[in-house]
C-alpha cells in the first residue's frame, strides 16, 4: 500500500519534470547583436547567470538580465540550465547577496524588456523563447531538454 503510494509519487514527479523539460526546449540565451560572441557553452552561461564570472571570452563585461519570479520562463530557464527549482536559485542568491559577494542580475517583467536590456547594453545577456529572438540580439546558446 505504502510502496504503491511512493511509486505513484515518483511517477508523478517524473511526469512533472518531463513536462517542464519539454517547455524548456524553446528557450535560448541571447546577447547583444554587436557583442561579437557567436556561441557559448553551458558552463559559460551558468558562470554569468550565477555571478561566478561575468566576462565574455572576448573581454566584454557581461551584464545579465533576469525575469521576475512570476514569469514562467524563469523557472523553465533555471530548470533547463542547472536542474534547479526557482527557490534553490533564490537561496543561492541570498547567500551571495548577504555575504556581499555578488549582486543578482536585475529582473524585468517581460521578454520584450529582456530584449530591450540586451540590445541597449553592450554586454547584455538574457533568455527568451526562440521565436521572440529578433535581429537586435544573437542566439548564443540553446537550452536542450
Amino acid at each position: 500500500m505504502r510502496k504503491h503510494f511512493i511509486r505513484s509519487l515518483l511517477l508523478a514527479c517524473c511526469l512533472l519534470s518531463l513536462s517542464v523539460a519539454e517547455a524548456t526546449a524553446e528557450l535560448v540565451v541571447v546577447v547583444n547583436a554587436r557583442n561579437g560572441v557567436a556561441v557559448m557553452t553551458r558552463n559559460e552561461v551558468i558562470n554569468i547567470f550565477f555571478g561566478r564570472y561575468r566576462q565574455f571570452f572576448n573581454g566584454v563585461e557581461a551584464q545579465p538580465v533576469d525575469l521576475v519570479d512570476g514569469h514562467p520562463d524563469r523557472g523553465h530557464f533555471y530548470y533547463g540550465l542547472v536542474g534547479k527549482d526557482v527557490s534553490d536559485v533564490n537561496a543561492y542568491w541570498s547567500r551571495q547577496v548577504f555575504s556581499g559577494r555578488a549582486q543578482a542580475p536585475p529582473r524585468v517583467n517581460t521578454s520584450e524588456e529582456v530584449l530591450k536590456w540586451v540590445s541597449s547594453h553592450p554586454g547584455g545577456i538574457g533568455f527568451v523563447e526562440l521565436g521572440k529572438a529578433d535581429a537586435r540580439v544573437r542566439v548564443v546558446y540553446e537550452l536542450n531538454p
Partner: protein
Amino acid sequence: MRSDSLNSLARLIGGKWRVLLVLLLLGGQVGAEETSNLSLNGFGTLGAVRTTSRDVEFVRDLSQPRGAVDRWDAKVDSILGLQANWRLNPELEAVVQAVSRYRYDKTYTPEISWAYLKYDPTPQLSLRAGRLGTEFFMMADSRQVGYSYLPVRPPGDFFWYLPFYSINGADASLTLPVGDNVVRGKVYYGISEGKIPYGQWQWKLDGSAMVGGYLDYQLGAWLVRASYANIRFNHNMPIVDLLTARSLPTPIIRQVDDYLAAANTRSHYYSLGAIYDSGPWQLQLMLNKITQGSEIFESSSAGYVLAGYRIGQVTPYVGFSWIRSEKRGPMNNPVLDPLLDVIKAESHANQNTTILGARWDFARNLALKAQWDGIRGEPASIFPFREEQDAWRGKMDVFSISMDFVF
C-alpha cells in the same frame, strides 16, 4: 499614511532599528523609481529548539551565553538582519548590514555586522574595505542566513567553535577562468570585534588580528576550496575574574593566568571543502583542523558530510558531523595542576552528531525546516555547551523547527 504607521512602528522598536526601518521605507519609495541604485534586503529566522537533557544547555555557537534545555526555546536560532546596498557607480558599491540575535550579553542588541565599500575595477578583481564578515571556513560568512542553506543551522561540530563574525579590515579577490571552469582566490586582513561569554564574564576579541585566504575551484557543479586563516588574540580569557571570584591568592591567580594566557598567542585554521550542487542533489563535505597556540584551548579536527535531495517543494537531508580535540599535557606543577585541569577541561570536545531533517520551500522566499540532531559523545565533551552539570553523559537529542525568510 503608510509612512506614519511605519514611523510609529519604528518608535516602538526604537534604537538602531529605527534608522534601518526609515531606510527601508525610503528604499521602498526609491525602489519605485526606475533608476534606483539603493536596494534594501533582509533575512531572518524564527526558530524553536529543545533537547532531551537538562545537564547541558545547547547553543548555536559559543557566542551565546545560555542555550536550550528540554523545553522549546526561541533564542538559539531566531535572528533578523537588514542590508542596504548602495551602488555609487558600476564599479563602486557601499553595503551596510545590521543583525539582531541573541548575543554574548543575553540581549538582542542590533550590531552592524557588515559596513564596507566594494570596488570592482575589472570583472576579475574585487576589493573591499570596512567591516567584513569572516569567511575562514567555507560558507562561514553566510552562517546567519538560514534561508541560504539546507539544515536549520550550520553543523555545530564544525562551526560551534567559531564565534568570530566580523573584522575591520580589507580583502581582495581575484577570479580567473580556466576553460569554462573558474578559479577564485581571496586574501583578507583585519582586526576582530566582539566578545565571547565565559561563565558570567566575557572574553574580549577586539584588537585580535586575523589574516587568511582561500582558493576556490569551480568545476561545473563542483566547488572545491582550500583555506587557511590565523588569529592572534589580544586579550586573555577572563581567568583573573574567575579565580578572583573564588578568592584564590593573588600569586596563584597570576601564575595560572600567565600559564593559560591567550593574549599574543596564535590559532591556525585549516580547512578543505567540497560542494556538489546540481539538479535535485546538494552534497557537502568539509574538514577542518584548528591548531591552538594557548594552553587554555585544545587543538581539534572536525568535519561533516551533508546530503539533500529535492522532491517537489521538499528537500529531505541527512548529515553526519564530528569533532575531536586533543587533551593537553600537565604543567607538572603539583600545586597548580588540579586547578588547571578543571579550567582546561572546559575546552574538550569529542563527539559525533547525526542530522536528519527536511526543508520545505512552501512559498516564495519562505522555508520551513524540521530537524533532529543526535549528539553522541564522551561525558567530557563539554566545550560545545553551556552550564554543564556533573550528570552530563555526552548524549542527547536536539529537535528543531524553523521558518527562514528573505525579502
